[in-house]
Protein backbone atom coordinates (compact mmCIF):
# COMPACT_ATOMS: atom_id res chain seq x y z
CA UNK A 1 0.00 0.00 0.00
CA UNK A 2 1.27 3.40 -0.89
CA UNK A 3 1.20 5.96 1.85
CA UNK A 4 1.27 9.64 1.10
CA UNK A 5 4.43 11.52 2.06
CA UNK A 6 2.54 13.38 4.73
CA UNK A 7 1.13 10.38 6.57
CA UNK A 8 4.43 8.55 6.45
CA UNK A 9 6.10 11.63 7.92
CA UNK A 10 3.57 11.82 10.71
CA UNK A 11 3.98 8.15 11.47
CA UNK A 12 7.74 8.57 11.48
CA UNK A 13 7.49 11.58 13.77
CA UNK A 14 5.37 9.72 16.31
CA UNK A 15 7.81 6.81 16.17
CA UNK A 16 10.62 9.16 16.96
CA UNK A 17 8.74 10.65 19.84
CA UNK A 18 7.90 7.33 21.39
CA UNK A 19 11.41 5.93 21.11
CA UNK A 20 13.08 9.23 21.95
CA UNK A 21 15.38 8.65 19.03
CA UNK A 22 17.57 11.34 17.56
CA UNK A 23 16.97 12.14 13.94
CA UNK A 24 19.64 10.91 11.56
CA UNK A 25 21.43 8.56 13.94
CA UNK A 26 19.76 5.48 12.48
CA UNK A 27 18.71 5.03 8.85
CA UNK A 28 16.59 8.07 7.97
CA UNK A 29 12.86 7.35 8.19
CA UNK A 30 12.05 10.01 5.62
CA UNK A 31 14.00 11.82 2.95
CA UNK A 32 12.64 15.13 4.22
CA UNK A 33 13.18 16.68 7.66
CA UNK A 34 9.57 17.73 7.99
CA UNK A 35 6.78 18.01 5.50
CA UNK A 36 7.86 17.14 1.97
CA UNK A 37 7.90 19.98 -0.54
CA UNK A 38 4.55 20.49 -2.29
CA UNK A 39 4.21 18.01 -5.16
CA UNK A 40 7.23 15.79 -4.40
CA UNK A 41 6.92 12.03 -4.08
CA UNK A 42 9.79 10.53 -2.10
CA UNK A 43 9.66 7.14 -3.75
CA UNK A 44 10.48 8.75 -7.10
CA UNK A 45 13.86 9.96 -5.88
CA UNK A 46 16.19 7.16 -6.88
CA UNK A 47 19.42 9.16 -6.87
CA UNK A 48 21.71 9.99 -3.96
CA UNK A 49 22.53 13.28 -2.28
CA UNK A 50 26.03 13.65 -0.88
CA UNK A 51 26.91 16.87 0.94
CA UNK A 52 30.40 18.23 1.58
CA UNK A 53 30.50 20.94 4.22
CA UNK A 54 33.46 22.87 5.57
CA UNK A 55 34.80 26.41 5.74
CA UNK A 56 36.62 28.16 2.92
CA UNK A 57 40.05 26.60 2.70
CA UNK A 58 38.84 23.19 3.86
CA UNK A 59 39.33 21.66 0.40
CA UNK A 60 35.66 21.17 -0.49
CA UNK A 61 35.88 22.23 -4.13
CA UNK A 62 39.02 20.19 -4.76
CA UNK A 63 37.38 17.09 -3.33
CA UNK A 64 34.22 17.64 -5.35
CA UNK A 65 36.21 17.88 -8.60
CA UNK A 66 38.01 14.64 -7.78
CA UNK A 67 34.87 12.81 -6.64
CA UNK A 68 33.05 13.86 -9.80
CA UNK A 69 35.80 12.36 -11.94
CA UNK A 70 35.89 9.16 -9.88
CA UNK A 71 32.09 8.71 -9.95
CA UNK A 72 31.93 9.39 -13.68
CA UNK A 73 34.66 6.85 -14.29
CA UNK A 74 32.54 4.38 -12.30
CA UNK A 75 29.62 5.15 -14.60
CA UNK A 76 27.57 7.43 -12.32
CA UNK A 77 26.18 10.70 -13.63
CA UNK A 78 26.87 13.61 -11.31
CA UNK A 79 25.07 16.89 -10.71
CA UNK A 80 26.51 19.57 -8.43
CA UNK A 81 24.99 22.35 -6.40
CA UNK A 82 26.40 25.12 -4.24
CA UNK A 83 25.65 28.47 -2.72
CA UNK A 84 24.55 31.34 -4.99
CA UNK A 85 24.32 29.11 -8.05
CA UNK A 86 20.58 29.44 -8.67
CA UNK A 87 19.36 31.08 -11.83
CA UNK A 88 16.64 32.85 -9.87
CA UNK A 89 18.67 34.85 -7.33
CA UNK A 90 22.33 33.77 -7.53
CA UNK A 91 23.47 37.02 -9.09
CA UNK A 92 21.19 39.10 -6.91
CA UNK A 93 22.90 37.74 -3.80
CA UNK A 94 26.30 38.55 -5.29
CA UNK A 95 25.09 42.11 -5.79
CA UNK A 96 23.70 42.32 -2.24
CA UNK A 97 26.95 41.07 -0.77
CA UNK A 98 28.94 43.59 -2.77
CA UNK A 99 26.83 46.46 -1.44
CA UNK A 100 27.00 45.51 2.26
CA UNK A 101 23.64 47.20 2.77
CA UNK A 102 21.68 44.02 3.30
CA UNK A 103 20.36 43.08 6.73
CA UNK A 104 20.67 39.63 8.25
CA UNK A 105 17.16 38.17 7.95
CA UNK A 106 16.84 39.42 4.38
CA UNK A 107 20.16 37.83 3.48
CA UNK A 108 19.20 34.57 5.19
CA UNK A 109 15.95 34.46 3.21
CA UNK A 110 17.67 35.29 -0.08
CA UNK A 111 20.01 32.36 0.55
CA UNK A 112 16.94 30.27 1.31
CA UNK A 113 15.40 31.25 -2.02
CA UNK A 114 18.66 30.42 -3.78
CA UNK A 115 18.75 27.02 -2.07
CA UNK A 116 15.17 26.02 -2.85
CA UNK A 117 15.37 27.23 -6.45
CA UNK A 118 18.29 24.87 -7.00
CA UNK A 119 16.66 22.08 -5.02
CA UNK A 120 13.30 22.18 -6.78
CA UNK A 121 14.35 22.95 -10.31
CA UNK A 122 17.70 21.15 -10.58
CA UNK A 123 18.34 18.73 -7.75
CA UNK A 124 15.01 16.97 -7.43
CA UNK A 125 14.81 16.35 -11.20
CA UNK A 126 18.38 14.99 -11.05
CA UNK A 127 17.50 12.68 -8.16
CA UNK A 128 14.39 11.49 -10.00
CA UNK A 129 16.66 10.53 -12.87
CA UNK A 130 18.93 8.57 -10.54
CA UNK A 131 21.89 10.97 -10.57
CA UNK A 132 24.42 11.46 -7.79
CA UNK A 133 24.18 15.00 -6.47
CA UNK A 134 27.34 16.41 -4.90
CA UNK A 135 26.52 19.49 -2.85
CA UNK A 136 29.33 21.98 -2.25
CA UNK A 137 27.79 23.22 1.05
CA UNK A 138 24.18 22.78 2.01
CA UNK A 139 21.61 24.11 4.51
CA UNK A 140 24.10 23.65 7.37
CA UNK A 141 26.39 26.48 6.27
CA UNK A 142 23.33 28.68 5.81
CA UNK A 143 22.04 27.82 9.29
CA UNK A 144 25.45 28.31 10.91
CA UNK A 145 26.11 31.69 9.28
CA UNK A 146 22.70 33.05 10.24
CA UNK A 147 22.83 31.57 13.75
CA UNK A 148 26.14 33.27 14.61
CA UNK A 149 24.46 36.52 13.57
CA UNK A 150 21.80 36.04 16.22
CA UNK A 151 18.95 34.52 14.22
CA UNK A 152 17.21 31.72 16.14
CA UNK A 153 18.24 28.17 15.33
CA UNK A 154 14.67 26.92 15.57
CA UNK A 155 13.59 29.59 13.11
CA UNK A 156 16.32 28.54 10.66
CA UNK A 157 15.58 24.85 11.01
CA UNK A 158 11.93 25.70 10.41
CA UNK A 159 12.74 27.33 7.07
CA UNK A 160 14.67 24.26 5.92
CA UNK A 161 12.31 21.62 7.28
CA UNK A 162 11.08 21.02 3.73
CA UNK A 163 14.64 20.45 2.49
CA UNK A 164 15.85 17.05 1.44
CA UNK A 165 17.82 15.08 4.01
CA UNK A 166 21.24 14.12 2.54
CA UNK A 167 22.23 10.46 2.27
CA UNK A 168 25.71 11.41 3.51
CA UNK A 169 27.00 14.66 5.00
CA UNK A 170 30.75 15.07 5.28
CA UNK A 171 32.30 17.83 7.33
CA UNK A 172 35.87 18.69 6.37
CA UNK A 173 36.99 20.14 9.66
CA UNK A 174 40.02 22.45 9.66
CA UNK A 175 41.34 24.82 12.29
CA UNK A 176 40.63 28.49 11.45
CA UNK A 177 44.39 29.24 11.41
CA UNK A 178 44.98 26.59 8.74
CA UNK A 179 41.99 27.82 6.73
CA UNK A 180 43.43 31.35 6.91
CA UNK A 181 46.81 30.20 5.58
CA UNK A 182 45.24 28.25 2.73
CA UNK A 183 42.86 31.03 1.72
CA UNK A 184 45.56 33.65 1.84
CA UNK A 185 47.88 31.53 -0.29
CA UNK A 186 45.12 30.98 -2.82
CA UNK A 187 43.77 34.51 -3.31
CA UNK A 188 46.29 36.80 -1.51
CA UNK A 189 43.39 38.27 0.43
CA UNK A 190 40.58 37.33 2.80
CA UNK A 191 36.98 37.94 1.85
CA UNK A 192 34.82 40.43 3.74
CA UNK A 193 32.08 37.90 4.50
CA UNK A 194 34.34 34.92 5.25
CA UNK A 195 36.01 37.01 7.95
CA UNK A 196 32.64 38.14 9.33
CA UNK A 197 33.53 41.79 9.03
CA UNK A 198 29.85 42.75 9.10
CA UNK A 199 29.84 41.59 12.73
CA UNK A 200 32.42 44.11 14.01
CA UNK A 201 34.45 41.43 15.77
CA UNK A 202 37.85 43.06 15.36
CA UNK A 203 39.47 45.73 13.23
CA UNK A 204 42.32 43.34 12.62
CA UNK A 205 41.47 41.18 9.64
CA UNK A 206 43.28 38.10 10.92
CA UNK A 207 41.64 38.33 14.36
CA UNK A 208 38.26 38.91 12.78
CA UNK A 209 38.66 35.87 10.52
CA UNK A 210 39.77 33.60 13.38
CA UNK A 211 37.00 34.71 15.71
CA UNK A 212 34.31 34.43 13.05
CA UNK A 213 35.46 31.01 11.82
CA UNK A 214 35.69 29.78 15.42
CA UNK A 215 32.05 30.80 15.96
CA UNK A 216 31.03 29.00 12.76
CA UNK A 217 33.00 25.95 13.87
CA UNK A 218 31.14 25.83 17.18
CA UNK A 219 27.83 25.92 15.29
CA UNK A 220 29.06 23.07 13.14
CA UNK A 221 30.01 21.01 16.19
CA UNK A 222 26.43 21.37 17.37
CA UNK A 223 24.98 20.68 13.90
CA UNK A 224 27.27 17.68 13.50
CA UNK A 225 25.74 16.02 16.57
CA UNK A 226 22.23 16.99 15.61
CA UNK A 227 22.45 15.76 12.02
CA UNK A 228 25.00 12.98 12.21
CA UNK A 229 27.80 14.43 10.09
CA UNK A 230 30.75 12.30 9.08
CA UNK A 231 33.60 14.41 10.35
CA UNK A 232 36.89 14.19 8.45
CA UNK A 233 40.20 15.81 9.23
CA UNK A 234 40.34 18.48 6.54
CA UNK A 235 43.98 19.11 7.38
CA UNK A 236 44.99 15.71 5.99
CA UNK A 237 46.44 15.40 2.48
CA UNK A 238 44.10 15.68 -0.50
CA UNK A 239 44.73 12.02 -1.35
CA UNK A 240 44.00 10.83 2.20
CA UNK A 241 40.78 12.82 2.54
CA UNK A 242 39.70 11.69 -0.92
CA UNK A 243 40.32 8.06 0.03
CA UNK A 244 38.08 8.37 3.09
CA UNK A 245 35.36 10.08 1.08
CA UNK A 246 35.46 7.38 -1.62
CA UNK A 247 35.24 4.62 0.96
CA UNK A 248 32.03 5.98 2.52
CA UNK A 249 30.46 6.90 -0.80
CA UNK A 250 31.33 3.53 -2.32
CA UNK A 251 29.63 1.79 0.59
CA UNK A 252 26.54 3.95 0.11
CA UNK A 253 26.34 3.36 -3.63
CA UNK A 254 27.48 -0.26 -3.64
CA UNK A 255 30.67 0.40 -5.62
CA UNK A 256 33.15 -2.44 -5.02
CA UNK A 257 36.43 -0.87 -5.94
CA UNK A 258 37.53 2.42 -4.45
CA UNK A 259 40.73 2.54 -6.52
CA UNK A 260 41.28 5.91 -8.16
CA UNK A 261 44.06 8.01 -9.60
CA UNK A 262 43.23 11.44 -10.95
CA UNK A 263 43.52 11.99 -14.68
CA UNK A 264 46.19 14.26 -16.09
CA UNK A 265 43.68 17.14 -16.13
CA UNK A 266 43.22 16.94 -12.35
CA UNK A 267 46.66 15.71 -11.29
CA UNK A 268 47.64 19.19 -10.07
CA UNK A 269 45.04 18.79 -7.27
CA UNK A 270 46.63 15.60 -5.96
CA UNK A 271 49.26 17.08 -3.70
Amino acid at each position, binding site marked *: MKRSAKTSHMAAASNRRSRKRKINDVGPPSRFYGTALPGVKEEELSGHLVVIEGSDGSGRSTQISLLTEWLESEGFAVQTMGLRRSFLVGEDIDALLAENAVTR*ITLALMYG*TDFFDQL*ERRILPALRSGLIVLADRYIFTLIARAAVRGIGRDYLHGIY*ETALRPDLTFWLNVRPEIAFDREFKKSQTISYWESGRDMSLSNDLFQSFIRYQSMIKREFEYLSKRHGFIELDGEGSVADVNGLLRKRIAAQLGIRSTQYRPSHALSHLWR
Partner: protein
Amino acid sequence: MASVAQNISALTESAPAKAPLPRRQYPGALIVVEGTDGSGKSTQLYLLKRWLEINGYRIHFTEWNSSPLVKSATRRGKQRRLLTPTTFSLLHAADFADRCERQIVPLLHGGYLVLADRYIYTAFARDAARGCSPHWLRNLYSFAPIPDITFYFRAPLEVAVNRIVAGRPKLKYYEAGMDMGISLDRAESFRIFQERILDNYDHMVETDRFVLMDGTIQVNKLQKLMRQMLRERVDLAQFAPKKK
Protein backbone atom coordinates in the same frame (compact mmCIF):
# COMPACT_ATOMS: atom_id res chain seq x y z
CA MET B 1 20.18 28.03 26.36
CA ALA B 2 17.76 25.49 24.99
CA SER B 3 18.71 21.90 25.69
CA VAL B 4 19.99 19.75 22.86
CA ALA B 5 16.94 17.50 23.13
CA GLN B 6 14.61 20.45 22.54
CA ASN B 7 16.59 21.54 19.54
CA ILE B 8 16.58 18.08 18.04
CA SER B 9 12.81 17.85 18.12
CA ALA B 10 12.36 21.22 16.43
CA LEU B 11 13.22 20.11 12.96
CA THR B 12 10.78 17.27 12.70
CA GLU B 13 7.98 17.96 15.11
CA SER B 14 5.57 20.83 14.85
CA ALA B 15 6.77 22.85 17.80
CA PRO B 16 5.19 26.32 17.95
CA ALA B 17 7.24 28.78 15.93
CA LYS B 18 9.39 30.93 18.18
CA ALA B 19 10.47 34.45 17.37
CA PRO B 20 13.83 34.33 15.57
CA LEU B 21 14.85 37.48 17.35
CA PRO B 22 13.88 38.59 20.86
CA ARG B 23 10.85 40.86 20.87
CA ARG B 24 11.33 44.37 22.11
CA GLN B 25 8.93 47.06 23.22
CA TYR B 26 8.66 50.16 21.10
CA PRO B 27 6.79 53.46 21.29
CA GLY B 28 5.37 53.32 17.74
CA ALA B 29 2.19 51.70 16.51
CA LEU B 30 1.53 49.48 13.52
CA ILE B 31 -1.73 49.66 11.59
CA VAL B 32 -2.36 47.08 8.89
CA VAL B 33 -5.02 46.63 6.20
CA GLU B 34 -5.65 43.20 4.73
CA GLY B 35 -8.16 41.70 2.34
CA THR B 36 -8.45 40.23 -1.13
CA ASP B 37 -7.81 42.23 -4.28
CA GLY B 38 -10.77 44.50 -4.91
CA SER B 39 -11.93 44.59 -1.29
CA GLY B 40 -11.36 48.36 -1.08
CA LYS B 41 -8.56 48.19 1.48
CA SER B 42 -6.03 50.32 -0.42
CA THR B 43 -8.55 53.10 -1.00
CA GLN B 44 -9.43 53.14 2.67
CA LEU B 45 -5.82 53.13 3.85
CA TYR B 46 -5.03 55.93 1.41
CA LEU B 47 -7.83 58.04 2.88
CA LEU B 48 -6.68 57.28 6.41
CA LYS B 49 -3.15 58.24 5.46
CA ARG B 50 -4.30 61.54 3.89
CA TRP B 51 -6.28 62.41 7.01
CA LEU B 52 -3.28 61.77 9.26
CA GLU B 53 -0.86 63.54 6.92
CA ILE B 54 -3.03 66.64 6.61
CA ASN B 55 -3.20 66.83 10.38
CA GLY B 56 0.59 66.56 10.70
CA TYR B 57 0.94 63.17 12.43
CA ARG B 58 4.24 61.30 12.40
CA ILE B 59 3.40 58.51 9.97
CA HIS B 60 5.06 56.19 7.51
CA PHE B 61 3.27 54.31 4.77
CA THR B 62 4.56 50.99 3.45
CA GLU B 63 3.32 48.61 0.78
CA TRP B 64 3.66 44.89 0.21
CA ASN B 65 6.19 44.00 -2.46
CA SER B 66 7.82 47.35 -2.98
CA SER B 67 11.47 46.88 -2.05
CA PRO B 68 13.99 47.57 -4.84
CA LEU B 69 16.24 44.95 -3.29
CA VAL B 70 14.50 41.90 -4.68
CA LYS B 71 12.67 43.55 -7.57
CA SER B 72 14.91 42.18 -10.30
CA ALA B 73 14.64 38.64 -8.97
CA THR B 74 10.87 38.85 -8.65
CA ARG B 75 10.59 40.20 -12.16
CA ARG B 76 12.90 37.52 -13.58
CA GLY B 77 11.04 34.79 -11.76
CA LYS B 78 7.63 35.99 -12.84
CA GLN B 79 8.52 36.70 -16.46
CA ARG B 80 10.08 33.31 -17.01
CA ARG B 81 7.64 31.53 -14.71
CA LEU B 82 10.36 29.95 -12.63
CA LEU B 83 8.70 30.41 -9.28
CA THR B 84 7.45 27.45 -7.27
CA PRO B 85 5.16 27.96 -4.26
CA THR B 86 8.24 27.72 -2.00
CA THR B 87 10.50 30.13 -3.90
CA PHE B 88 7.58 32.51 -4.53
CA SER B 89 6.98 32.59 -0.81
CA LEU B 90 10.65 32.91 0.20
CA LEU B 91 11.30 35.72 -2.25
CA HIS B 92 8.37 37.71 -0.89
CA ALA B 93 9.53 36.95 2.64
CA ALA B 94 13.02 38.26 1.80
CA ASP B 95 11.43 41.38 0.35
CA PHE B 96 9.27 41.84 3.42
CA ALA B 97 12.25 41.22 5.74
CA ASP B 98 14.16 44.01 4.00
CA ARG B 99 11.31 46.44 4.57
CA CYS B 100 10.79 45.18 8.08
CA GLU B 101 14.41 45.41 9.17
CA ARG B 102 15.21 48.68 7.45
CA GLN B 103 11.93 50.61 7.74
CA ILE B 104 9.15 49.16 9.87
CA VAL B 105 11.13 48.12 12.96
CA PRO B 106 13.37 51.23 13.12
CA LEU B 107 10.34 53.49 12.63
CA LEU B 108 8.38 51.73 15.36
CA HIS B 109 11.34 52.24 17.67
CA GLY B 110 11.46 55.88 16.58
CA GLY B 111 7.84 56.39 17.64
CA TYR B 112 6.11 56.46 14.27
CA LEU B 113 2.61 55.42 13.33
CA VAL B 114 3.33 52.89 10.59
CA LEU B 115 0.59 52.16 8.05
CA ALA B 116 0.97 48.95 6.05
CA ASP B 117 -1.01 48.09 2.92
CA ARG B 118 -0.93 44.29 3.30
CA TYR B 119 1.24 42.52 5.82
CA ILE B 120 2.24 38.98 6.74
CA TYR B 121 -1.38 37.79 6.60
CA THR B 122 -1.29 38.30 2.83
CA ALA B 123 1.45 35.67 2.68
CA PHE B 124 -0.40 33.37 5.07
CA ALA B 125 -3.60 33.55 2.99
CA ARG B 126 -2.06 33.52 -0.48
CA ASP B 127 0.90 31.16 -0.09
CA ALA B 128 -1.20 28.63 1.81
CA ALA B 129 -3.69 28.79 -1.08
CA ARG B 130 -0.74 27.85 -3.31
CA GLY B 131 0.08 24.80 -1.19
CA CYS B 132 2.72 25.98 1.30
CA SER B 133 2.33 24.54 4.78
CA PRO B 134 0.67 27.06 7.16
CA HIS B 135 3.04 25.99 9.92
CA TRP B 136 6.06 26.67 7.69
CA LEU B 137 4.66 30.09 6.76
CA ARG B 138 4.01 31.10 10.37
CA ASN B 139 7.59 30.28 11.25
CA LEU B 140 8.95 32.06 8.18
CA TYR B 141 7.38 35.37 9.20
CA SER B 142 7.79 35.04 12.95
CA PHE B 143 10.28 37.92 12.99
CA ALA B 144 7.54 40.43 12.11
CA PRO B 145 6.10 42.74 14.80
CA ILE B 146 2.45 42.01 15.62
CA PRO B 147 0.16 44.84 14.42
CA ASP B 148 -1.74 47.04 16.88
CA ILE B 149 -4.77 46.89 14.59
CA THR B 150 -5.40 44.71 11.54
CA PHE B 151 -8.35 45.98 9.51
CA TYR B 152 -9.68 43.15 7.39
CA PHE B 153 -11.73 44.41 4.45
CA ARG B 154 -14.14 41.83 3.30
CA ALA B 155 -16.16 42.00 0.12
CA PRO B 156 -18.18 39.09 -1.29
CA LEU B 157 -16.14 37.07 -3.78
CA GLU B 158 -18.12 38.13 -6.85
CA VAL B 159 -17.94 41.82 -5.96
CA ALA B 160 -14.17 41.72 -5.44
CA VAL B 161 -13.47 39.60 -8.52
CA ASN B 162 -15.62 41.82 -10.73
CA ARG B 163 -13.86 44.96 -9.50
CA ILE B 164 -10.50 43.50 -10.53
CA VAL B 165 -11.51 41.81 -13.77
CA ALA B 166 -13.38 44.90 -14.97
CA GLY B 167 -10.46 47.22 -14.22
CA ARG B 168 -7.69 45.22 -15.87
CA PRO B 169 -7.14 44.34 -19.51
CA LYS B 170 -5.42 41.07 -18.62
CA LEU B 171 -4.77 39.22 -15.39
CA LYS B 172 -1.13 38.36 -14.84
CA TYR B 173 0.02 34.74 -14.70
CA TYR B 174 0.85 34.48 -10.98
CA GLU B 175 -1.86 36.96 -9.98
CA ALA B 176 -4.43 34.64 -11.54
CA GLY B 177 -2.84 31.61 -9.85
CA MET B 178 -2.12 30.02 -13.23
CA ASP B 179 0.99 28.34 -11.76
CA MET B 180 -1.28 25.99 -9.83
CA GLY B 181 -2.90 24.67 -12.99
CA ILE B 182 -6.42 24.92 -11.59
CA SER B 183 -7.94 26.09 -14.84
CA LEU B 184 -6.69 27.14 -18.27
CA ASP B 185 -9.08 30.07 -18.23
CA ARG B 186 -7.43 32.99 -16.45
CA ALA B 187 -10.61 34.56 -15.15
CA GLU B 188 -11.81 31.21 -13.85
CA SER B 189 -8.43 30.41 -12.28
CA PHE B 190 -8.36 33.85 -10.65
CA ARG B 191 -11.83 33.33 -9.19
CA ILE B 192 -10.94 29.95 -7.64
CA PHE B 193 -7.63 31.29 -6.32
CA GLN B 194 -9.34 34.30 -4.75
CA GLU B 195 -11.95 32.04 -3.20
CA ARG B 196 -9.23 30.01 -1.47
CA ILE B 197 -7.53 33.18 -0.28
CA LEU B 198 -10.80 34.59 1.04
CA ASP B 199 -11.38 31.37 2.91
CA ASN B 200 -7.92 31.52 4.49
CA TYR B 201 -8.46 35.16 5.52
CA ASP B 202 -11.80 34.30 7.11
CA HIS B 203 -10.09 31.71 9.27
CA MET B 204 -7.69 34.33 10.61
CA VAL B 205 -10.40 36.72 11.84
CA GLU B 206 -10.39 34.99 15.21
CA THR B 207 -6.86 33.62 15.45
CA ASP B 208 -5.24 36.93 14.52
CA ARG B 209 -7.87 39.29 15.93
CA PHE B 210 -8.81 41.01 12.69
CA VAL B 211 -11.17 43.98 12.79
CA LEU B 212 -13.78 43.07 10.21
CA MET B 213 -14.71 45.86 7.78
CA ASP B 214 -17.61 45.47 5.36
CA GLY B 215 -16.14 46.33 1.96
CA THR B 216 -19.57 46.92 0.44
CA ILE B 217 -20.31 49.97 2.63
CA GLN B 218 -20.03 53.41 0.98
CA VAL B 219 -16.46 54.66 0.87
CA ASN B 220 -16.93 57.79 3.01
CA LYS B 221 -19.00 56.00 5.62
CA LEU B 222 -16.47 53.20 5.92
CA GLN B 223 -13.67 55.74 6.24
CA LYS B 224 -15.50 57.50 9.08
CA LEU B 225 -15.78 54.16 10.85
CA MET B 226 -12.11 53.41 10.30
CA ARG B 227 -10.99 56.75 11.73
CA GLN B 228 -13.22 56.28 14.74
CA MET B 229 -11.80 52.81 15.43
CA LEU B 230 -8.25 54.07 15.11
CA ARG B 231 -8.92 56.84 17.64
CA GLU B 232 -10.45 54.35 20.05
CA ARG B 233 -7.58 51.89 19.93
CA VAL B 234 -4.51 54.02 19.44
CA ASP B 235 -3.51 57.04 21.44
CA LEU B 236 -3.11 59.39 18.50
CA ALA B 237 -1.88 62.23 20.70
CA GLN B 238 1.55 60.61 20.90
CA PHE B 239 1.95 60.89 17.13
CA ALA B 240 0.62 64.44 16.92
CA PRO B 241 2.89 67.30 15.77
CA LYS B 242 4.97 68.60 18.67
CA LYS B 243 3.92 72.02 19.88
CA LYS B 244 6.67 74.56 20.40
